[in-house]
């Protein structure tokens, strides 16, 4: 031990041991700094406690300090690169958002609605606004033929022009056209737009038929409806145009515009012009109908896909052309109005002239200040009043004035005779009426038989009103109850001798009234064997038809039907139920 060490020992004594201990501790700490993991391991438990203590003692100050530190950290990290920050935070945010959205759907929806809803509504409004601007521009500046046509069409249909234009502005895409045999639901021909396809067209045809049949037969059963004409599915539509034995089904996206409806009508008309009979007789044999040729007739419908909107035409730059077009439109409109009036006038005149009571008198019509005036002379007020009954059967767009005069006729024998002849001829147009008459010295005699006693009474009243007529004698047999039936023995359907007189009468009536048509219905007894009854009723009707054809009656004037039951009110009379009955109808009257 040297002098210095001895001195140290004398001065520090016991503390020397403590200093050595401190030196060792310092050395240990220095070593720990060289290994931070070990240091963290020691500090972390205390750090958590320290944070908890700090936040509980002065929460506001602690929060401020932490936020500041975090902001600095994020800023610093972001300044270097966003990606690592985003990569770290995104999954956390996404997971939390997802969890919250699932558990608070309605709240999230309410929260987002003002933003998302606003965005959507802004987009849609903008789209509609653009469309309306487009429409307005077309209305204001359009002097094209198309626009004038549209104006006329809007007027005729009674709709607003902008509404019509709105529908026209909606894009239409014809995806497929199918001609379907209505009773079978079979596809006769179909065609799809370029690039498109349709799975199982036969299934589509059958399903459409089943659906429309169901709707027509059940839902519309009690109502005066025609066939269903539009079915919506997804975002598309099926527009159906129906004829007697077929549907034309047009599958389209967009609105069923007037163009689509009109073109579908035209196409169906063309198809029926060419193929109505084969379609009617179609029994599943696909060779009986030329599908390829029919498909060609669908072309106008697909042409609508490439049709440039009528509005592509710019407003006329040439005033002269515009004036010409306006004049043409005006001319067209005037011509149409005139046509409407003439059509209306002709219809009124037809009603008057086909009425058996009014047809005898010279009644005419004329236009005065947009009102149709009925003029002429009739012999009594009753007939004048009848004009209104005949004419006013439905609401008309024009005013009608009845200015017919009631004038007591002079004793014009020749004219009276002519009127009587006309009345009798009208009555004789009924196949079961056979009247003759004579006029001499103001005395009229009518004789014969009639199945229409009510009509005879009305005619007699008119004849009796004639001034030239002093007396009217009627000697007419009422045959309205006459039984025009052929009866058959049980289990038979053959035409026998006793049937001949009635068959000849029926044949002569048909010859006498070439406009008349006859429906023959065969009946049977009410026994339980439905098959036997059906065969008998059918055979009775067919044999009767054959007998009339043999008597020179054209087959197309006879309709043959059968019902395996007794006729109405003969259910309990077996001998009267085994029969054939004749039902007349006059084609002229039917058309009227």
């Amino acid at each position: 031990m040297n002098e210095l060490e001895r001195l140290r020992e004398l001065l520090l004594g016991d503390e020397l041991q403590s200093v050595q201990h401190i030196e060792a501790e310092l050395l240990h700490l220095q070593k720990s700094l060289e290994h931070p993991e070990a240091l963290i391991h020691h500090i972390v438990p205390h750090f958590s406690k320290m944070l908890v203590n700090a936040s509980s003692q002065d929460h506001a100050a602690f929060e401020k300090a932490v936020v500041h530190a975090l902001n600095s950290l994020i800023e610093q990290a972001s300044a270097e690169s966003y990606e690592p920050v985003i990569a770290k935070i995104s999954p956390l945010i996404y997971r939390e958002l997802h969890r919250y959205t699932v558990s608070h759907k309605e709240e999230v929806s309410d929260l987002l609605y003002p933003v998302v809803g606003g965005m959507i509504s802004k987009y849609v409004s903008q789209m509609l606004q653009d469309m309306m601007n487009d429409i307005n521009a077309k209305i204001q500046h359009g002097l094209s033929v198309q626009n004038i046509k549209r104006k006329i069409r809007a007027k005729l249909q009674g709709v607003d022009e902008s509404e019509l234009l709105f529908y026209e502005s909606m894009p239409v895409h014809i995806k497929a056209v199918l001609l379907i045999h209505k009773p079978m639901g079979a596809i006769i021909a179909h065609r799809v737009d370029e690039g498109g396809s349709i799975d199982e067209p036969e299934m589509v045809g059958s399903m459409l038929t089943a659906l429309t049949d169901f709707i027509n037969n059940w839902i519309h059963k009690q109502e005066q409806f025609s066939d269903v004409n539009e079915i919506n599915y997804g975002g598309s539509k099926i527009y159906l145009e129906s004829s007697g034995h077929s549907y034309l089904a047009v599958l389209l996206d967009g609105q069923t515009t007037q163009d689509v409806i009109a073109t579908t009508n035209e196409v169906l008309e063309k198809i029926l012009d060419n193929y109505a009979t084969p379609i009617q007789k179609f029994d599943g044999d696909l060779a009986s109908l030329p599908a390829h040729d029919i498909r060609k007739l669908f072309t106008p419908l697909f042409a609508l896909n490439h049709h440039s909107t009528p509005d592509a035409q710019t407003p006329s730059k040439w005033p002269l052309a515009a004036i010409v077009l306006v004049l043409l439109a005006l001319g067209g409109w005037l011509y149409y109005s005139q046509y409407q009036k003439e059509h209306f006038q002709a219809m009124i005149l037809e009603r008057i002239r086909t009425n058996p009571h009014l047809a005898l008198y010279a009644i005419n019509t004329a236009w005065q200040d947009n009102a149709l005036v009925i003029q002429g002379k009739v012999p009594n007020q009753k007939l004048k009043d009848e004009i209104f009954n005949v004419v006013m059967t439905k609401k008309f767009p024009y005013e009608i004035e009845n200015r017919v005069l009631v004038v007591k006729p002079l004793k014009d024998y020749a004219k009276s005779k002519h009127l009587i002849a006309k009345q009798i001829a009208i009555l004789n147009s009924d196949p079961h009426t056979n009247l003759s008459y004579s006029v001499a010295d103001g005395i009229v005699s009518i004789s014969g038989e009639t199945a229409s006693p009510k009509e005879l009474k009305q005619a007699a009243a008119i004849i009796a009103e004639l001034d030239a007529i002093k007396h009217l004698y009627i000697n007419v047999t009422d045959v309205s109850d006459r039984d025009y039936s052929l009866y058959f023995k049980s289990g038979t359907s053959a035409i026998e001798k006793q049937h001949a007189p009635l068959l000849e009468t029926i044949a002569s009536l048909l010859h006498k009234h070439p406009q008349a048509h006859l429906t023959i219905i065969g009946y049977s007894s009410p026994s339980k064997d439905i098959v036997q009854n059906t065969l008998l009723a059918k055979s009775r009707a067919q044999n009767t038809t054959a007998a009339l054809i043999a008597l020179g009656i054209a087959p197309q004037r006879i309709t043959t039907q059968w019902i395996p039951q007794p006729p109405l009110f003969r259910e309990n009379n077996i001998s009267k139920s085994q029969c054939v009955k004749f039902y007349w109808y006059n084609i002229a009257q039917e058309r009227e």
Partner: protein
Amino acid sequence: MKKYIKKILIIGNHGVGKTSLATRYVENKFSDAYLSTIGVNIMKKNIILSDHDGNMAAVALMLWDVEGTNKNQNIPLHYAKGCNAFIVVVDATRPQTLENLQQHLDYIHNFDVAIPFIIAINKSDLESVVTLESVAFKRKYSNCVDIIKTSAKEDDNVEKLFTLITKRTVW
């Protein structure tokens, strides 16, 4: 080869196996669609037929499986419009369905007295109460093509049933 499209209506009481017969025959389940609301199930099968003379025909067969009826319930007549033939299905295990057979035949004859039909006694894999003999009297109908015991479950006579009736609509 001539091409045809034919519509055949399958009728019968509830639960006699109309749909099972049709699906067994058609097999392709993707081509069927059930319009349960309106009571008809339409299926399609393309088949090739040949007759004794070697004539061939391609037929798109549209099977209209009409919802089953019970006694006194009528099948809507509009489904039968334009159909070429009927298949009447009875259940071999339920005599009640045989009792309603006459009702179905009346329906067919009211629709068209000459239209062909075939009777299928289905579920013949089970203990049968309805036998061929018990419906033999139906053969008096000239338009009754045949009466066949079938089993949709065991695929017994199903092909024969549909082929026979379809052939009758073509030749």
